[in-house]
């Protein structure tokens, strides 16, 4: 009977498993396969095998692009998290549930707005004849000739803009459960506010921060639309290079080679993340517990992506009801 149930279970999971195997795992392998194929002159994939696409990665322009992709990813992640921590601290300390939810929604709504429209908004915002430009020129911050758009700073600003909600949600979901009496206790023991914040609050939310790093850094490495739309002549990232190889140059092997590099760059932090959590995440090496914790973090990662997920609201609601009582 038990065997039967396990089998039944297996069949439940099978369709999705097979689907992802074919349309998620297999394509990733196909990429590494096409890297070693030649281009045919019609823009398709040629016969035989070659190392040409790999050799072309030595192109002197690539290190610069990869380095730019790397530092922009790191900087935008860092800024997003640096902004998100105080926000989450603040949100978690607001005791009025309605106001708290309202603030949370305000932060999350842009995340639900169409991605293209958010980028487009920045093109309007940074327009050379737009309000911001006039304001800055009037204040004497920049000369009339400065272009706000089409440079890597614009790319960075828009990246931060679009990823902030990604950073806020996972941190918030941990900060919300943080016991703030610990902070008061630390202060009672003579710690300064900032010291208490640094030594008590930060370690308390470290898991949320780690998740936030993942969900910002990895998409940031793959940014494509942002450099394409607000970037200029010198702000290409790996993502829009890949797109150009596909759509303009019709060089699929070359695009694959770049994608393979990006894929490795993405999976390294992912592996590091899992490893990191294994080392620091649990104190007892107990396998079952470890499993549970992993599940928990993934869960949080997941549900935090869902705007104010059902759970958040219900938790807030419960807290509110408790407070009312």
């Amino acid at each position, binding site marked *: 009977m038990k065997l039967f149930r396990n089998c039944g279970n297996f069949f439940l999971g099978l369709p999705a498993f097979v689907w992802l195997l074919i349309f998620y795992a297999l394509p990733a392998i196909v990429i590494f396969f096409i890297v070693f194929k030649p281009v045919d*002159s*019609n*823009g*398709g994939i040629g016969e035989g095998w070659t190392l040409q696409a790999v050799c072309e990665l030595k*192109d002197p*322009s*690539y290190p*610069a*692009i990869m380095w730019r992709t790397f530092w922009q990813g790191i900087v935008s992640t860092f800024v997003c998290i640096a902004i998100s921590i105080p926000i989450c601290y603040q949100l978690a300390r607001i005791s009025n549930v309605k106001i708290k939810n309202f603030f949370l929604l305000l932060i999350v709504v842009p995340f639900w707005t169409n991605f293209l429209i958010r980028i487009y908004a920045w093109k309007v915002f940074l*327009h*050379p*004849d737009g309000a911001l430009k006039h304001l800055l020129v009037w204040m004497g911050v920049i000369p009339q*000739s*400065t*272009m706000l*758009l*089409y440079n890597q700073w614009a790319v960075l600003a828009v990246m931060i803009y679009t990823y902030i909600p990604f950073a806020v949600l996972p941190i918030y979901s941990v900060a919300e459960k943080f016991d703030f009496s610990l902070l008061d206790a630390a202060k009672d023991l003579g710690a300064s506010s900032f010291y208490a914040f640094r030594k008590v609050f930060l370690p308390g939310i470290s898991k949320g921060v780690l998740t936030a790093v993942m969900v910002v850094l990895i998409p940031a490495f793959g940014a494509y639309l942002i450099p394409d739309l607000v*970037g*200029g*002549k*010198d702000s*290409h990232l790996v993502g829009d290079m890949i797109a150009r190889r*596909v*759509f*303009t*140059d*019709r*060089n699929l092997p070359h695009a694959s080679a770049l994608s393979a590099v990006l894929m490795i760059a993405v999976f390294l932090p992912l592996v590091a993340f899992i490893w990191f959590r294994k080392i620091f995440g649990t104190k007892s090496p107990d396998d079952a517990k470890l499993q549970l914790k992993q599940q928990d973090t993934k869960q949080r990662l997941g549900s935090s992506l869902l705007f104010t997920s059902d759970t958040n609201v219900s938790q807030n609601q419960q807290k509110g009801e408790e407070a009312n009582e």
Partner: protein
Amino acid sequence: MKKIITMGCIALLAASTAFLTSCGQKKTVLRIYTWGDYFAQDILDAFEEKYDCTIQLDEFDSNESMYAKVKAGGGGYDLIVMSTYTAKLMYEQGMLDKMDHSKLATVNKYFDKKYEHLTLDPKLEYTIPYFVSFTGIGYDTEKVKDFEPSWAMFEREDLKGRTSLLDDHREVIGCALITLGYDVNETDQAKLDEAVDLANKWKKQIAKFGVDDTKQSLASGEFLMIQTYSGDVLQVSMEKPSIKFVIPKEGTTVTFDNFTIMKDSKNKDLAYEFINFIYEPENAVKDMEEIQYVLPHTVAVDMVDEDIRNNPAFKVPEETFERCHLLIDLGDDNAKFLKAWDRIREE
């Protein structure tokens, strides 16, 4: 919770009805793939009414991306409007149908043979010319001081960060080659290297490479000077008269955009009718007045509104033709251009 369920059901219902109605369409559909903003809406509407059909218009922004998509996906198009050099490539690959001139009475009646030398297919075997487009410089006469009709303008330091070049390897390298006095389709590596150096000098001053978005930037004052196609600038200058288009004295590239009929098209007769329809004088005039490119038409060009017609950027004087060069498909040598382009794009 019930409400959410109801909401969900309504959404699904709405989606499914939308789907069903889309299946219910019975009219013939003419599928056209073309550059953005390339047909006057009135004409499309008139054609739909006259032939009781629906036109499905899809847009692309470069020959290369169009080719990549059609090559990979078929797309089921009847008509594609593309540059001659791409048409040649696709014809040689057997993707385009041969033109049946017995079905093109109106075109044969009005096509202006004066323009024949501007196409790679002078006998019109597989293409019917639509608009002729010149690459040139669009600029704001109020803001650019001491303008000279020369590609050397892109080296001017005082315009730094306020100019743009086309995001098209053939156009940028081509114009650099012309400036150096070489052939626009030059494949000699040493000469290409020189062109790359020149283009890099231009690149230092520009803000970005772009195609269709730059005309808007020129209109809104974002950019003061751009490398672009004639009609795009003329469209903009309707709203902002201080904007002007010139063909540089060194010369420039010229391409015809052509109607081509796909081999696997299922509505070839309707496609022929569409081409004829565009060549009807009154439609041709309307189209030219709105899109502001020249159709090689014996009658209609002279019927276009005087203000537009007298603009040398619209009806280019014959002597300027001497300085306009045709782009041809380079086959395997295209890789050299792409390599060179990479060296320009990523210093």
